[in-house]
């Protein structure tokens, strides 16, 4: 460490902690610590502050990044991230409630998102707060599965798209959720086939699509005790993946795709309408 003025003992010990002292300085501080209890206490205080701050700053990374901000960066759209931080309006009423929901969403982001800074919660997680370890949700499992299988171009699905009837019968029987395979050609997505996953301990269907660039999109659903029929969609982001989830009575759904996808919400709306 180069000094332009005499460093305080706090700064010297702090630099000592960081390995930013030369050999002479290190020896001096070692001797100081050996003979001076107050210096040792001060060093412990510095270590304590470092550990406390590091934990807090690490938690900040768990705060979800606004999806629209990511999209704007990757696609140069004119989306204003301040207006699209959270999608929370009920799907069927979104035109009427759009502005209010947006304002409420931004407010909720500030409150809810900032709580996440400390305890590492994600924006789409409604589970009760856990001070130490957050329980995994089915969305965590679905996201992990997506990351693994999206990188398996030759083994992306268990049953390929041409066996659509088998897919419907198999996954309906396995999950207990009746469904229709959506035709997403208007969104330039081609159905690839399906898999059965386990998410939060439950059988979960995963329908997989690819766009023209080979990017993989998934629709996942599982049986759920929810009676929620509001159609409220929750948008989240896990690193480079975007998620939009919603509930229907008896089932939970999520669409997973690259975070840079433009009109991802429109895609989720289109899927929800036919599922």
């Amino acid at each position: 460490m180069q000094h332009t003025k005499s460093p305080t003992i706090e700064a010297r010990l702090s630099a000592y902690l960081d390995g930013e002292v030369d050999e002479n300085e290190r020896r001096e501080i070692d001797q100081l610590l050996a003979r001076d209890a107050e210096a040792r206490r001060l060093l412990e205080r510095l270590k304590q502050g470092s550990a406390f701050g590091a934990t807090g700053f690490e938690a900040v990374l768990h705060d979800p990044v606004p999806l629209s901000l990511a999209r704007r960066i990757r696609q140069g759209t004119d989306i204003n991230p301040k207006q699209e931080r959270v999608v929370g309006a009920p799907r069927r009423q979104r035109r009427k409630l759009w502005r209010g929901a947006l304002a409420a969403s931004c407010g909720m982001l500030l409150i809810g998102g900032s709580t996440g800074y400390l305890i590492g919660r994600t924006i789409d997680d409604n589970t009760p707060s856990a001070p130490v370890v957050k329980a995994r949700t089915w969305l965590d499992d679905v996201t992990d599965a997506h990351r693994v299988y999206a990188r398996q171009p030759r083994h992306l699905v268990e049953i390929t798209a041409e066996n659509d009837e088998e897919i419907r019968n198999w996954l309906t029987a396995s999950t207990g959720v009746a469904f229709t395979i959506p035709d997403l050609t208007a969104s330039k997505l081609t159905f690839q086939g399906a898999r059965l996953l386990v998410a939060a301990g439950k059988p979960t269907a995963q329908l997989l699509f690819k766009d023209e660039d080979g990017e993989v999109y998934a629709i996942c659903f599982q049986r759920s005790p929810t009676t929620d029929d509001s159609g409220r969609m929750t948008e989240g982001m896990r690193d480079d993946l975007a998620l939009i989830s919603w509930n229907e009575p008896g089932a939970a759904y999520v669409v997973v795709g690259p975070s840079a996808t433009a009109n991802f919400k429109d895609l989720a709306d289109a899927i929800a309408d036919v599922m």
Partner: protein
Amino acid sequence: MRPAQESIDISRDLVSLLPRLRRFALTLTRDGLQADDLVQAVCERATGRQPVWNGHGRLEDALYILARTLQDEANGRKRVAADPRVGSASAGGATSGDAVQQMMIAMPEGLASAFLLVAVEQRNYRDAGHILGLAPDVVAHKLATARLRLAAMASDTTERRA
């Protein structure tokens, strides 16, 4: 060999760096909304016509420097080596119940940034000073002050829980 400067597409890298960039921006602005605005401004500049990164060194450092520069401009003044023992927290943007944001906001300007770069992201004093526009010894003083403040906060938190 890297492609020519003007052909470097940093968009995907930017997205993956967003969480860290936002965290750094928060230490600069000490306000959640302002931090997002700053991140957006940084990304716009970074993907604009004037490259901020020439393909050498860490993209992250170039973005951090840009963020700090933009924040300096926003503050309407050049960052100087302020005494870390003076200064007051920004009033805006604090959200209730957010201990981490409160922690950062409660620290005088520059302390959280220095702490983040060195104690969390493991940069040396020289590199941290380069990003913050500060001499290494000023970084050292800010860091020591930040650690002691954080230690006090840790003690307060422990006492409240007891």
